[in-house]
């Protein structure tokens, strides 16, 4: 069975050389080529390839962000000129990480790795491993959210607060609420702890949005945000808030 491959890469020549090398590897079928993350996302969802050759520096949304938006990501080989993203790449379970320029042999090795992994997956009919929350060295700078076919990029500074809603987290900004299919824990790890504080099981707030902390019922507190929203503070949340505010 052929491995179905999709390329997402913003430079035509870089696509060209990938294609040139891929053609010479038997058992592969190139099913799609895309120049940016938006088209790539749509294409991958339609084509459901087995393998994705992905550049990281793409216009508007990065390769990482594209991957995050996919419900069932294929195997991924990153192809980039930057060596600084390698650790992050393996954190998102990338198969391999190719540095430009690369040789035909290097691409071949990566593809063979993919072939093994895909065969293994078929054999055991493995479900996609749910992505663990990784301890990442760098906090998120923006959050990508997909609403239907629309993709929004929300700079983390624009977030007022986050609220857990079943399996989703509601991201509240001046422009309204965006839903993202992630547990609250994900944001607790990914967002900068000096800016965001989990004040309640269901709430995380942007500390710069807080204008007042006031008592509420007995021994309980609530936060008033700039937008006028009131956010409850739990007992353990109060402790974290105290630590965060110093």
């Amino acid at each position, binding site marked *: 069975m052929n491995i179905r491959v999709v390329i997402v890469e913003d430079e*035509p*020549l*870089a696509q*060209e050389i990938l294609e040139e090398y891929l053609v010479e590897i038997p058992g592969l079928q190139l099913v799609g080529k895309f120049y940016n993350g938006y088209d790539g996302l749509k294409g991958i969802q339609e084509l459901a390839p087995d393998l994705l050759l992905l550049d990281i*520096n793409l216009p508007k949304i990065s390769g990482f962000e594209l991957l995050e938006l996919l419900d069932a990501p294929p195997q991924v080989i990153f192809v980039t000129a930057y060596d600084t993203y390698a650790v992050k790449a393996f954190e998102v379970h990338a198969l391999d990480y190719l540095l*430009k*320029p690369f040789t035909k042999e290097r691409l071949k090795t990566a593809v063979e790795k993919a072939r093994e992994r895909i065969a293994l997956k078929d054999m055991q009919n493995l479900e996609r491993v749910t992505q663990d929350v990784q301890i990442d060295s760098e906090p998120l700078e923006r959050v990508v959210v997909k609403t239907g076919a629309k993709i929004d990029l929300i700079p983390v500074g624009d977030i007022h607060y986050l609220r857990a809603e079943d399996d989703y987290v509601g991201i509240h900004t001046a422009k309204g609420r965006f839903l993202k299919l992630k547990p609250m824990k994900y944001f607790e790890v990914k967002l900068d702890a000096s800016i965001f504080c989990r004040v309640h099981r269901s709430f995380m707030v942007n500390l710069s949005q807080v204008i007042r902390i006031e008592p509420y019922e007995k021994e309980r507190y609530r936060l008033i945000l700039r937008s006028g929203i009131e956010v409850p503070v739990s007992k353990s949340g109060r402790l974290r808030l105290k630590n965060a505010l110093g």
Partner: protein
Amino acid sequence: MAYLLSKKPAIRPWNWVIGTFLFVLLSVSLLWYYGLDLNLAVVDSMVFAVILLGAALLLANLFTYYNPTTSGFRYHLLFPVIFGFSTLFLGRSILLWLDFEESGYREFLDWTVPLRLVFMLLILYGLTIVVLWKSQTEKENKLKERELLTEKISKDAELYFLRQQLQPHFLFNSLNSISALIGSKPDSAREMIQQLADFFRLTVQKNASGWESLEKEWERISLYLKMEKVRFGHRLSLDLRLDEKTLEMQLPPLLMQPLVENAVKHGLDGLVEKVNILIETFYTPKYLQIKVCNPFDPEVSGKKGAGFGLESVNRRLFLLFGRKDLLTCQTSGNLFIVMLKIPQRQ
């Protein structure tokens, strides 16, 4: 006042003490040798020592903080004489006022006046020379220090710009493009290798201090743009409007390039559609003005790295001209506009 206090004294306090002690010792020995009573010799010497110390301190401070070298050494010759005469006059008056019973002291005092004057002038002139020499060496040291600092700053800048310029990603991506061209269009590959080589040669040749013409700077920028066209030709278009009159104008090397790179990078990164970069130069008698425009997506502002290139240009402008108003950025709709003004040396 602060700068006065920060200045190091030419002569350390301990040396004043030793000097005074030596003066007293020498003076007592001499006076005693010439037949003065020992007690009187000690009192006489002490009185003059104290007054001379005061005069010397005054003189040293005067020449440390006020050093009128512009008017020649007139003051350096005159002041010790004034101070010497004053010391002698004051000392003599005090000693006479003390009115020692000893007969012949007054005559002795007057008889030794010329000798004392010579003696004190020698001391005061010696002191002047030491102070002058000290402040001169200090001045030279400071000058050297400043020179070293300036040199270091410009070296740092040079290194910084080289590293900026030799951005490995640009090199790696270009090499990747060449690798692709070798298969399909070998001639284009050769051409791009040549451009890459020329570009890096021009970059490495730069010395950070010398200025160059816009024409020269443009040579390098256009090489860069050509290579970016090879990589992103499908969505990168350029609108270049260089005023003929500006080509001969001067600018520090590698100052304009970061603006162009910034525009290309953020234009391509921020949009998925076609990107048009406008570069325009204007002639004014005092300034070379450069305008660089790129489209951007006002919605997406959270991406890191925006403005970093601009920040470094701004810092360099400040180092060069001491001004912060030469680089301005503004947005107009979905256009990001950078204006650079470079003062022209007359």
